[in-house]
């Protein structure tokens, strides 16, 4: 499955067989279960190609004690701890309230054991959800999450097990907190992932020197926001080198706050771009990013976002046939 253009809207794309009206994907953990940001006048789920729902586990979870978030230089730490009402309630009570005419909704599946990932995936497979993101990179829970995602062998086992119980598009969310993300990507492709989300948050910490205590209740948290953009960009570039050979698309994410940021990720190899923390500063940022991408495509002679994906020209490599030549 690949990401390609499907219609005359230059922002639209086909992502694993799903039509995204925009390359913007609203990220799991930032937009609740899809309805929360609609409180804001001027915000619309239609401005995003897809919305990824909050991380969901088999049983309901209370999550971590406060403080759960803290601003850091050009970023933010969070350790929410997968607070959610449990997969059954999400499928039976929340999904029926979503308007699937507005955008694509993607579930985010997490668990402490492979069995839990499978159980939750199975529940979502039998639901109207458009795709399933496997969260093997949550840095804020004691079991599961990044404990799977930092080891290629474990990552592949989770993906393989989920693959067996669903035919919906599977997106594997990769951790930046690992030694060799390319090896992990290779193993996940072999295990049957259809796409990647690159990256999850970078593990970090904040200390209150006056109190000599960690600020975050969970002691450590995941860093997001512009501070991690260069890390995310490199990881997308690295995963793209592996994934493009298999036609596996990437949602590039980490610190995107503007169209310029989004374009850099697309050029690095992302078929779609995740927006999360940027919403906290500007809840209406999606429209601005869409406009900026549209303007760029026009100025550079690209007919679609898909034509721009992975057009990075590396030193020493022959110039890619892109832009006007491709348009």
């Amino acid at each position, binding site marked *: 499955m690949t990401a390609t253009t499907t219609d005359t809207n230059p922002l639209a794309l086909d992502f694993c067989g799903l039509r995204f009206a925009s390359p913007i994907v609203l990220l799991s*953990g*930032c*937009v*609740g279960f899809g*309805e*929360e*940001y*609609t*409180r*804001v*006048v*001027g915000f619309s789920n239609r401005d995003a190609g897809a919305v990824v729902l*909050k991380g969901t586990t088999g049983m309901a979870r*209370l*999550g971590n*004690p*406060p*403080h*759960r*978030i*803290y*601003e850091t230089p*050009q*970023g*933010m730490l*969070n350790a*929410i701890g997968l*607070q959610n009402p449990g997969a059954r309630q999400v499928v039976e009570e929340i999904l*029926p*309230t*979503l*308007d*699937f005419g507005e955008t694509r909704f993607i579930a985010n599946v997490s668990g402490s054991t492979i069995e839990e990932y499978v159980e939750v995936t199975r529940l979502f497979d039998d639901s109207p959800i458009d795709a399933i993101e496997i969260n093997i990179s949550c840095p804020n829970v004691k079991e599961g999450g990044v404990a799977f995602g930092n080891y290629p062998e474990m990552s592949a086992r989770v993906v393989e097990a989920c693959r067996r119980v669903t035919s919906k598009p599977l997106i594997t969310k990769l951790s930046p907190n690992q030694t060799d993300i390319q090896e992990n990507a290779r193993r996940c492709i072999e295990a049957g992932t259809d796409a990647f989300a690159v990256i999850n948050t970078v593990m970090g910490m904040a200390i209150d020197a006056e109190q000599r205590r960690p600020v975050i*209740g969970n002691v450590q948290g995941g860093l997001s*926001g*512009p501070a991690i953009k260069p890390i995310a960009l490199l990881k997308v570039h690295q995963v793209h080198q592996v994934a493009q050979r298999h036609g596996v698309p990437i949602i590039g994410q980490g610190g995107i706050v503007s169209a310029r940021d989004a374009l850099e990720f697309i050029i690095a190899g992302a078929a779609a771009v995740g927006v999360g*923390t940027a*919403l*906290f*500063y*500007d*809840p*209406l940022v999606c429209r601005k990013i869409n406009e900026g991408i549209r303007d760029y495509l026009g100025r550079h002679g690209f007919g679609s976002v898909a034509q721009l994906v992975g057009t990075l020209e590396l030193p020493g490599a022959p110039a890619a046939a892109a832009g006007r030549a491709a348009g």
Partner: protein
Amino acid sequence: MTEAAAKDRPHRGTIFVEDAEVLDVEAWPAEQFIMRLVAPQCAAHARAGSFAHVTCDPALPMRRPLSLMRADPGSGVIEFLFKIVGDGLRLLAQRRPGETVSVMGPIGRPFTPTPGRRRPLLVGGGVGIPPMVFLAEALGPAARDGLVLMGSEVPFPFDPADSRLDVAHLPQGVVAAMPLMENLGVPSRLASLGGFPGCYPGYVTELGREWLRGLDAGALQEVEIFACGPTPMLKAAAALARDFGLPCQVSLEEYMACAVGGCAGCVVQVNTPAGPAMKRVCVDGPVFEAAAVDWGAMQH
């Protein structure tokens, strides 16, 4: 989605994002500031207890939640009172008249006075003063049989004056009041350990206890407590309510990211019939029933 579900979306379109022009910034001692801005939609829809999520400076990646102290639907002006506690509010205090900041609001579940409780006891401590001002002004004459108590360990962000309104059962010499309340005809008194003239030399909740002790059983039945301030003060207000068997609503704060209920970053632990739950200060609060809050789990 069913048609019924589509209609049942009262939450949609309730929070406005406005480029608000700063009208003035008033500096008070101890790095306290009163900022007035033009944000017509926020002003039109705000209720006592609502807050707004404000950009302090483009250099910071996050907004700051600030309680609304006043909101005038007629002029479209909103008013914040804040004390510098970090980089964000330090930068906000530097904004000058004519500049704009982005105001996202109004947000949150407001105070909801219980019918029949005609003696509200409003308790505001430090940066918890703003929503108490909003509530007192909203109640107006309905608060005349109640009492507004403000506490501060630094000079108050207004000029106290001796009260013209008698309040029974208060200690001798506690006469300092908030002129704004006097103008409303609502009795108020001030408490501080800072040694300011006319103030009760103790905690604001202890002054509240003195007043409640003086009420007879019938009058006590008409009291409801509303409180906003530092966590130890809110804990004491909750204890006061428990001791006298009174309903009590508290406005809480916590570090906040999205302010729309999307990130679950700003939670507090509350007790529900189904067991403990993490509730979001932004949209489940900021006003909570004091009796439901798990005070042992609260961060200071």
